């Protein structure tokens, strides 16, 4: 079996979620790598969308900014942020990948502050386009390292909507119906959300980790699927394409 690191695992697992012909709104880094990998393996017609206006590029290499020229290289359209987000708002975008400094059991994300808002210990960038993508795209996913400081009982600030307070709270919030968090992919496991409570639930565990590891590195109680699978590790092909074609300089996967 191939040697791989946890970033390579997460990207490979994420890429498998993206079916051919789907649309995905991504940022720089791991999400973009996952989308590029999916295009090269199983989803050649996956349409990659950047919030700044790039639509359907043939990415020649990893962009460093979601607005740099790579995001419109041989693209279908170089448009505006309004056009792109309108497109998400009216239901054309299937997936998005987001992240944050904190995540809670309903998949809500914090990328605004640690500490009190008025007097923060650490100021982060804020929503950017994350709140927008999470509000509009049908299925929101997260790739993140897992630890109890990041997976918290209560967010310091709810920047980006997951299932809000669970149950039907998102439905009642005014956000578009039917959209919400879908999968959380960490270095230890893959989680989805239990359909009624909308609480995070373990559905598969990554090679080398135990159920206890996963729970111990989470600041809230995780639900467990009836059958918990073993996450399939990256294949030789996935690793080769990821290392040689998607991220040859190791910007994201940390190898070069």
């Amino acid at each position: 079996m191939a040697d791989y690191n946890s970033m390579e695992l997460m990207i490979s697992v994420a890429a498998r979620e993206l079916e051919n012909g789907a649309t995905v709104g991504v940022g720089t880094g791991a999400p973009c790598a996952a989308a590029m990998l999916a295009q090269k393996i199983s989803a050649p017609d996956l349409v990659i969308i950047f919030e700044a206006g790039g639509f359907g590029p043939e990415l020649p290499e990893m962009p460093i900014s979601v607005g740099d020229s790579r995001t419109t290289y041989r693209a279908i359209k170089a448009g505006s942020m309004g056009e792109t987000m309108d497109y998400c708002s009216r239901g054309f975008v299937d997936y998005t990948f987001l992240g944050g400094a904190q995540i809670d059991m309903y998949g809500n994300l914090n990328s605004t502050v640690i500490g009190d808002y008025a007097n923060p210990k650490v100021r982060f960038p804020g929503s950017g386009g994350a709140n927008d993508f999470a509000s509009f795209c049908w299925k929101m996913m997260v790739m993140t390292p897992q630890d109890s400081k990041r997976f918290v009982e209560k967010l310091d600030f709810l920047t980006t909507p997951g299932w809000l307070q669970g149950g039907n709270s998102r439905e009642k919030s005014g956000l578009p119906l039917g959209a919400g968090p879908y999968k959380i992919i960490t270095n230890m496991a893959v989680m989805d959300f239990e359909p009624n409570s909308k609480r995070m639930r373990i559905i598969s565990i990554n090679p080398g980790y135990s159920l206890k590891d996963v729970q111990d590195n989470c600041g809230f109680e995780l639900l467990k699927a009836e059958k918990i699978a073993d996450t399939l590790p990256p294949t030789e092909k996935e690793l080769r394409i990821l290392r040689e074609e998607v991220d040859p300089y190791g910007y994201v996967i940390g190898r070069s």
Partner: protein
Amino acid sequence: MEVIEQGLGQLFMNPDPDLLRAFFQLKDRKMVNKVMTLKNAVEKFVHDGDYLAIGGFGANRTPIAACHEIVRQGKKNMGFAGHTATHDMQILSAGEVYNRLDVAYVVGLEARGLSACSRKYLQSGKVQTTEWTNYALSVRLQAAAMGVPYLPARNMMGTDTFKYSAAKTALCPYTGKKLVLLPALSPDVSIIHVHESDIFGNCRFKGIAVADKELANASKRLIITTEKLISSNEIKQDPSSTSIPYHLVDAVCVVPFGGYPGTMAGEYFSDEEHLKEWMTAEKDADKFKAFLNKNIYECKDHEEYIRINGGQVKMQELRAKELLLNKEG
């Protein structure tokens, strides 16, 4: 949100963005060859009872060939966005295609006068009308494009245009000012004529955009008629110029001179003689029947329509007129 006033007109389309989202969630986004004949496209994507919108402005970059085909196929009971509608509406009225009409600009052909046929049909009692303005319909399409149920504006208020619309007014919670709220309009099917498209539906038009970007974004189904095909490579080499991206498009129909007898910016000017023939024929029921038989019902397609109305010689004259070649000496 307290409604202050409400128009008496009927709202023909549900402005709920979640319905639109549910539709677009399932719309195929694969980049596949969508080239087909106009006949097939109209058969497949234009249904009796659908709400229809036509791109362009008046007789400028308007998919006239598609309007003929709709009439030829005898489509009926449609809703229609009478948004800067002139010759397109004249054709659809001749076929009595629609029975519900959002009015912004109808029955007229601008400086050319009024269409007897459109007027007669509207005065027949067979058509239910709701009043709007050109900008109001453009904003209504923009609302659908943005995935919201309405957008506010500051026109229409205080008039009978509002009274016979299906709009509402309410106070702005930031300024206390009264605003008109224009409900989203998402046509079931729209047709837009463009200068060039690839086989997937990535296309470009030149000159004024009118409300065609909003329309393309707002519509559930979209037929493109194009003067010509270009390679997908050409689109990708200049993505800043893409007018409409492929995923909004259901069919690509190659129809050279597809805007004739209207104007196509940079390509051909309108055929004013033929438009006058229309306006004259309309005034006499028998003559008009014969005229429609000749030009639409017994006409196989747009190529034949052009041939019987002057063919390539006429097209080259209209090109010279469009390009103001007479001014070059």
